[in-house]
Every structure is written in C-alpha cells, then in structure tokens.
C-alpha cells in the first residue's frame, strides 16, 4: 500500500469513528436556539408587582439575569404541563444566572394562587398580575404566554403563546446564559432572594 493510500484509509477510518461516536449516544442533544441579534432586541416593558410574601418586585431587579417570564393561571390546563419544567429549570440553571418568574393572571388573586404554590411546591417566585401588566405584554388573552428576557432586560426570542416543547425552552435558556452581557460583566446587583411561603428569613 502506498503512503497516499495509507493516509486515505486512515482518514476514512477517522471519519467512520467520528460518525460512530456521534450516533451511539442515547442522550438527547439539544440544538441551541438562535436568539435575535442583540442590537435588534426590544426592551421588555417595566413592571412592579407583588409576590406571595407581599414584597414589591420589579423587572429591573433582574438585570444581569436571564429571565423566563411566564404568564399563567390556576385554571389553565396547558400551564400546568409547563410548570414542572420551569421548576426543573430553576434548579438546573439558577446557579448559571437564570431566574424563573411566574405571573399569575387569576382574577381571584392570592386566595387561589397561594394554595396552588403550596400544594405544587413551586420553587420560583410567583407574582400577581394585573390589567396594567396584561396590557403592557400584549393583552394576555391566551395563556400560557412566556417570554425569554436577556441579561440586558430585552426580549431575545419571540413570545411563546401556548404550550411548546420543554427542549425548546431549554435550548433558548442555554443560548442566553452563554451570551456575554455588560450587566453580568459589571457584576450588577442580582434580584433579591426568593422567600418561599413559610420559609424562615
């Protein structure tokens, strides 16, 4: 066998080895979503709402963090499907800079939302929405409606209206967590610690 033939054979074997490794894994590979170009992103509308402990929470408190902002209601079946995913994301990605924030649009207010938080052991902050925030975020006639907001407080992806796949959320979250931002670089103050109902201060 000539040197050229030997090199060709080695190349083919290498390519085959790479293909084998790529196909043999049973772990699902998440394709990274492509966020909007940073210069074209629009600022998420500012709001201040109240959490289940009575604390005032503003969107600007989360500058420097990637925010998954989910509008939902206790009467919304598809919302219930997503909530366990969001609980997982909060655990998995919090240390990397993700904050999951749920805004309940229940008209009956904390009377129905607080028991839901307790019974479902929600591990992320829940705020109570109002007509004002509803108008700011497009009317919210359909739930769930979810926004991914980058560390600069801007919409990085189109809003998700209705139930979408868990992997799509994971992909978008990972994409944003990997982005460099001026806020993160400057080490701006992060959001106040979440106080879950009944937790000692």
């Amino acid at each position: 066998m000539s040197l050229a033939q030997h090199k060709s054979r080695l190349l083919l074997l290498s390519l085959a080895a790479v293909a084998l490794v790529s196909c043999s894994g049973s772990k699902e590979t998440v394709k990274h979503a492509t966020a909007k170009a940073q210069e074209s992103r629009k600022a998420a509308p500012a709001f201040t709402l109240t959490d289940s402990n009575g604390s005032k929470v503003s969107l600007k408190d989360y500058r420097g963090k990637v925010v998954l902002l989910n509008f939902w209601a206790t009467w919304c079946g598809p919302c219930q499907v997503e909530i366990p995913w969001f609980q997982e994301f909060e655990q998995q990605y919090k240390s990397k800079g993700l904050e999951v924030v749920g805004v309940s649009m229940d008209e009956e207010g904390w009377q129905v939302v607080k028991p839901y938080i307790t019974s479902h052991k929600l591990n992320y902050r829940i705020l109570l929405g109002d007509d004002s925030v509803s108008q700011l975020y497009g009317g919210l006639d359909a739930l769930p409606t979810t926004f991914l907001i980058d560390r600069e407080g801007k919409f990085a992806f189109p809003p998700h209206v209705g139930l979408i796949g868990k992997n799509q959320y994971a992909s978008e979250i990972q994409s944003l967590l990997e982005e460099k931002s001026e806020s993160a670089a400057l080490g701006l103050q992060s959001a106040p610690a979440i106080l879950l109902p009944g937790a000692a201060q």
Partner: protein
Amino acid sequence: MASSLLLPSCCLAQLNKIVVHPPDPLTVVRGASVEQTLELAVLPGFHVNSDKPKDETLIPLKLTWTNGPLETQSVSYPEAKEIKVGSQQVMVFTGKFQIQTKFHVPAGIAKGSSTMTGKLHYQACNDTMCFRPSSVAVTLPVSVE
C-alpha cells in the same frame, strides 16, 4: 410595541369560542311552567369546561338568567365529555350542545311581550392554550298570553 408582539394570538383570543344561537320567542301562559332550550356550539378545535369540572380551580360553564318576568326553576346541562390535558382528566363540552331551563310563569304578570336576559359564563381552551373566562349575553323574547 407590546401589542405587536402577540398579533396572532390577539386575533385568536378575540374570536368567540362559543356561539349561542338566538333563542326563538317563548310563548307562555300565566301560572304555568315552561321549558326552554338554548342551542350552543363550541367552535371546532376548542373545548369549554363543563358545568362540573373535576378540578375546583377550573372555571365552570354557567347559564344565569338575570332579568325578566319569569322565575328560573332549574337549569340543566348535558352530559360532559372527558378529555386529557397534560396529566389532567378534564370534563368538557365540545361541538353542539343544549342547555335546558325550566321557568315558572308567575300568575300575576302582565300579558304581552317581554324579554328574559341572561348571561352564559365560560372558559375555553384548545390543545395548547386557554383563553380568559368570558361571558355572552343571552336574550329570550317572551310572549305572555
């Protein structure tokens, strides 16, 4: 700016998910009881919670007669269909269905034309999203003989 973000769902949300067919005029006799049938239709692709959802957090469909000369004795709903949403089993109405109301005609009411007004409160969803609870006004012409 914010409204432009959600244009498709804005249009979808504004669509009434349930159609209430205008009821035919009801002719009644003083002192008697009478039954009225309201015909409804849920748009294809959508469902509404039944009058008795399994989960107390879900918003039931409810017909309430709010004003008019007749006394409401009972409102009866059809048998609901069970569907699965996520891990939940949900009782819903889909397609065409009817709601029966039994009225009592007071003996002392005036003869002639009148109107019963009511409200149908419901909450609709499709497979991937739910819409805000909504109400539809119902008007029933009544002729007292």
